[in-house]
């Protein structure tokens, strides 16, 4: 029997072919391992659970974790709320390609560039405040930059394309005849959407949510530049621990908290997503 590529490699050759990739994966997992090990060591390199003890007791870390979950959760929710209509709009549009350019170009533009755009818009002398002032709505500047609102706004903007594309991917694969069948059986457009289209597109929403939540909870650049350091999140605190406080072990312990809290949210979502995809035969 011949392989689809026509390459008749021996088992040894095939093993060699996989080696570079396997090596890269191994390095990655090894690096993650250093975080796990680093989090159970003290600064002298001895085994110690002191950091975890502190994590459980410390008020600051609980606040930090809770704030991260809240910001990431809200970002995910808003992304889903604005992402779904956009995805549905694009899926049914005639000029789908043009609309895709509007989504994909910002998506592929560096996070740092997009964050900079929001600094210009939200700053005290920025676009938004100038607009509000000239319309006479406010006298003083409205503070959005360096507040959690700024962080969420920036994160929604950076991550919304992930949600849109994820939902769009399920919508375009959807069998149109199902919706037509619903209509011909007497359901109105709204009922058809609610009972046919939406449930079938749920896997896209779920995988969009898991990506957005993951990226939002692990973000550093957007929260630092738009939210500032006062309302730190786990990601920004990890960065501070390493570069301002030079404490790799504490950073590792915080990274473990981040890892566990995001996996606790993301893995069930992905599991549900997988189940739904199997059910709908996608």
């Amino acid at each position, binding site marked *: 029997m*011949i*392989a*689809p*590529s*026509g*390459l008749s*490699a021996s088992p040894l050759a*095939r093993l060699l*072919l996989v080696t*570079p*990739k*396997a090596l890269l*994966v191994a*390095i*990655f997992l*090894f*690096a993650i391992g250093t*975080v796990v090990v680093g989090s159970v060591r003290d600064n002298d390199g001895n085994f110690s659970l002191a950091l975890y003890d502190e994590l459980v007791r410390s008020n600051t870390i609980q606040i930090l974790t809770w704030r991260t979950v809240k910001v990431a959760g809200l970002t995910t929710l808003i992304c889903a709320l604005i992402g779904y209509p956009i995805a549905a*709009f694009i899926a049914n549009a005639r000029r789908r*390609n043009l609309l*895709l*350019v*509007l*989504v994909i*170009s*910002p*998506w*592929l*533009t560096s*996070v*740092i*560039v*997009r964050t*900079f*755009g*929001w600094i210009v*818009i939200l700053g005290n002398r920025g676009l938004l405040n100038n607009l509000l002032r000239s319309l006479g709505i406010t006298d003083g500047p409205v503070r959005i930059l360096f507040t959690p609102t700024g962080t969420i706004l920036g994160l929604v903007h950076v991550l919304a394309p992930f949600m849109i*594309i*994820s939902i*769009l*991917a*399920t919508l*375009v*694969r959807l069998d149109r005849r199902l919706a037509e069948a619903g209509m011909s059986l007497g359901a109105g457009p709204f009922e058809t959407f609610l009972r046919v289209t939406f449930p079938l597109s749920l896997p*896209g929403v779920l995988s969009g949510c898991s*990506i957005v939540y*993951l990226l939002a909870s*692990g*973000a550093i*650049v957007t929260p630092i530049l738009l939210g500032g350091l006062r309302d730190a999140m*786990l*990601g920004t605190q990890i*960065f501070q621990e*390493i570069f301002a406080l030079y404490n790799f072990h504490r950073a*590792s312990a915080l*990274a*473990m908290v981040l*890892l566990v809290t*995001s996996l606790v949210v993301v893995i069930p979502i*992905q599991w549900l997503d997988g189940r739904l995809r199997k059910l709908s035969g996608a």
Partner: protein
Amino acid sequence: MRRTLWTTLNWTLLLFLPLPLAVVAAVSISPSRFISFPPTGFSLVWYQQFFASPQWMTALGISTGIAIAASLISTTAAVMAALGLERARASTRGIMETLILAPLIFPHAAIGVAIFGFLASTYYLRGTYWGVCLAHVLLCVPFAYRPVAAAFHKLDRSLAEAAMNMGARPTMILQRITLPMVAPGIVSALLFTFIVSFDEITVTLFLTAPGITTLPLTIYSRLEQNADPVVAAVSTLLVLLTLGLVLLLQQTIGLELFVNTEGDDTARSKS
């Protein structure tokens, strides 16, 4: 009426995405020495300053070099792995693919600490561009593998069989049938990983050391201090570059690629 409202709402939401980029472009052509909107005139002085600055040019060169290396290495490894795994048992392949895609389920801040810790423990890679490059390759692994594996998955065994029956040698089959058929997958892997590496900031931030700089890192450090309009000019150039690539893709392979072949999985690339 409801239809117009729906369309208006969606266009408003859609234009929210390119809005900050347009604002940056407007700032970049303003002659004012401070970041100001709306622009007070038209001038390309900040672009001149960008191209005349050795610091910016170095950063641009380094980012380009790292991105080219990372995309070539990760894509080559992906093609090799896809070839090596094509006849593997489904369970073996499943395990390998889960491992290859593993970087996608870790938050970036945690990956940053991990790679920081790993590189710090090595003698030769610490504080070097090789280290940064390795980090980018590790991040690119899943994005290179996805499109390549999807292309291999779509290969039709009967084509290779037919060619073999007509006397083609394996190398010829590879050259004339397999490679042309998986080429779009390889091209999108190269392009995608290039962009992932070129734009990468969160993990690279952990690898900053004296003498280490990339274009996004330089932008970041300028933003942390006091952003000058040169940053706006650089940013606009990056936006135009991305827009150019996207339009090129639209004309050639088609943007549906992002939505159809892998959709939600490709989506995990950025940020």
